[in-house]
């Protein structure tokens, strides 16, 4: 029974990882870049939602407003920081997002301070009991939302004109431009959509965790989930997120007594390292065929 409990709470954490991972995957799929500032997008969205609810906006209205604000923030980020880097090597763009994450995090520290906020959760505190399994409302919702988003993005990238354009841009910027794809538009939309997903993750996380500037670091814990699933696979992000959530909970539950604390935080990275040794492109990532 202890095992089952660990697995269930692992799935609950994992569904949030999956939501975060999806934000990473979207930007990678659209632009071929890992956005290190994703965690900051999550944190900022959580604070926006917190203040909106604080100003008396009802929760069901606050969430869409937060998402709109996130989308604007994403598009703004793209316009100011990423657009000038168009055509630069991927490494430089990644480094820019690292700079952006440092900047946003410390600015948030200046604006919001470093103390903890309590997010007014709209969900009942009493968890759901389904056949002896205990599950909180918030985790249930994040699972549902992750799954719905996965379906949505699956069809989006397979059939929608814009989704195909995004994939083409990630594959080869020059060729995509020659084919008449407006890559500036693609970039702006990609960042906007990805920040919306980050906003959803932010609202979800603020409900289960303490809300402070450190919320941004959750994104770093979600990296293993992204890589495990493969950088450009939406289903991979979901499976990777769930797998990492379950594994870290199991490792924390069984190994903590033996080595003394903290196993939970390091397990995802150890798993990531091992998986990359065996599959260099993650579980579901596409292998790049190289030509000279």
């Amino acid at each position, binding site marked *: 029974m202890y095992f089952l409990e660990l697995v269930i709470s692992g799935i609950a954490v994992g569904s949030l990882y999956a939501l975060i991972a999806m934000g990473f995957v979207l930007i990678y799929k659209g632009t071929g870049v890992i956005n290190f500032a994703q965690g900051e997008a999550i944190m900022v969205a959580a604070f926006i939602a917190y203040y909106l609810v604080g100003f008396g906006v009802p929760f069901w209205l606050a969430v869409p407003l937060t998402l709109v604000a996130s989308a604007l923030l994403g598009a703004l980020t793209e316009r100011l920081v990423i657009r000038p880097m168009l055509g630069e090597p991927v490494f430089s763009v990644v480094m820019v997002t*690292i*700079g952006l994450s440092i900047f946003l995090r410390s600015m948030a520290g200046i604006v919001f301070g470093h103390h903890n906020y309590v997010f007014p959760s709209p969900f009942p505190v009493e968890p759901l009991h389904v056949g002896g399994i205990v599950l909180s409302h918030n985790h249930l919702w994040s699972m549902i939302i992750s799954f719905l988003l996965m379906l949505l993005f699956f069809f989006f990238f397979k059939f929608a004109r814009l989704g195909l354009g995004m994939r083409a841009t990630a594959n080869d910027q020059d060729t995509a431009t020659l084919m008449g794809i407006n890559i500036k538009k693609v970039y702006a939309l990609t960042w906007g959509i990805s920040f919306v997903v980050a906003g959803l993750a932010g609202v979800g996380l603020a409900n289960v965790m303490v809300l402070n500037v450190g919320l941004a670091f959750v994104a770093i814990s979600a990296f293993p989930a992204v890589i495990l699933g493969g950088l450009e696979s939406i289903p991979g992000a979901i499976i990777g997120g769930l797998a990492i959530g379950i594994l870290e909970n199991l490792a924390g539950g069984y190994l903590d007594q033996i080595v003394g604390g903290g196993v939970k935080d390091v397990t995802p990275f150890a798993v990531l390292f091992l998986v990359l040794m065996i599959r260099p492109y993650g579980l579901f990532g596409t292998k790049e065929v190289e030509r000279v």
Partner: protein
Amino acid sequence: MPIRSKTFCESYHEDIKLLDTIWSKCWMVLFILGLLILPYITDTYIVYMVNLSCIAVVASVGLNILTGFTGQISLGHAAFLAIGAYTAALLGEGLGMPFWITLPAGGLVSAAAGILVGIPCLRLKGLYLAMATMSFGVMVEYVLITWRGLTGGERGMYMPEVNVLGHVLDTDESMYYFLLCITALMIIVAKNIIRTRVGRAFIAVRDRDIAAEVMGVNLTGYKVTAFALSSFYAGVAGGMYAYVMGHIHPEHFTLMSSIEYLAMIVIGGLGSILGSIFGAIFIVAAPEGIKLLAQGLESLIPAMQGRYDEEWNIAVFGLLIMLFLIFEPGGLNAIWQRIKVGFKNWPFTY
């Protein structure tokens, strides 16, 4: 990049010379003299900052060998510094070994770790490699905190002072000369590695690895060599860090410090030894510069009184990384080259 006129090389040997003209030799001599008299003309604080810069220079030269020249992105450089620092501390404090054993030993143990990481990472490329090295860094940090018997856990470890032939280097000024010698040695070695076959092979691997292999460059061998060399530099830098600080702690070697080293070589200039020196000095000096600027603003604008704290430092640091990459992707090295060429070609533009 603009090319200097009046450059005629008649042989390959001439082309790869470190100091090509009589003037560059003169400037170098002047620069070294300036470094030697520095402690006599400035205060202890500046000397201490230069000491920190020396450590950063060695570490960033190491990272530039791996990332800038060989094209293997590493987000776990601080872990190799940690391995070097802890090895040096274990040998120095635990067994009472002198610096000429602890520093190379730190470097070698770190290089061994680099090979251990490098071999399984051979198949990884680009961002996947960055993630793998990052998780190595996280794991090392975890081991440092958890393995209390060896590393002292959260309490960290102490390091004795350097003892050179019976002289204990207990002031910043004496440490300065010690660190300067090591740093100069490491830079000269790096410069020479880069201009010989090994260095050219690194660059070939970076530019097109498959083409390089077709041309007869042993991809496996050179990638592992780059990992080993880079972590050797990191290990030595870690040992130097332990000597300067006197106390090491897992918190000194986090993901954030790995990012700082990466920022050094990006701001300085990827694939340039001079660039990594610029970058290292810049990143070490930047917080001080920002602090001075903030204090200046505070005295000018009364409304800003008391608003400054460490957080602003970090914010400006992040902003600087972004601005540099957006406006000057070549880094400080590119600016320097432009100034140099402009000066040399004056009054003509080419």
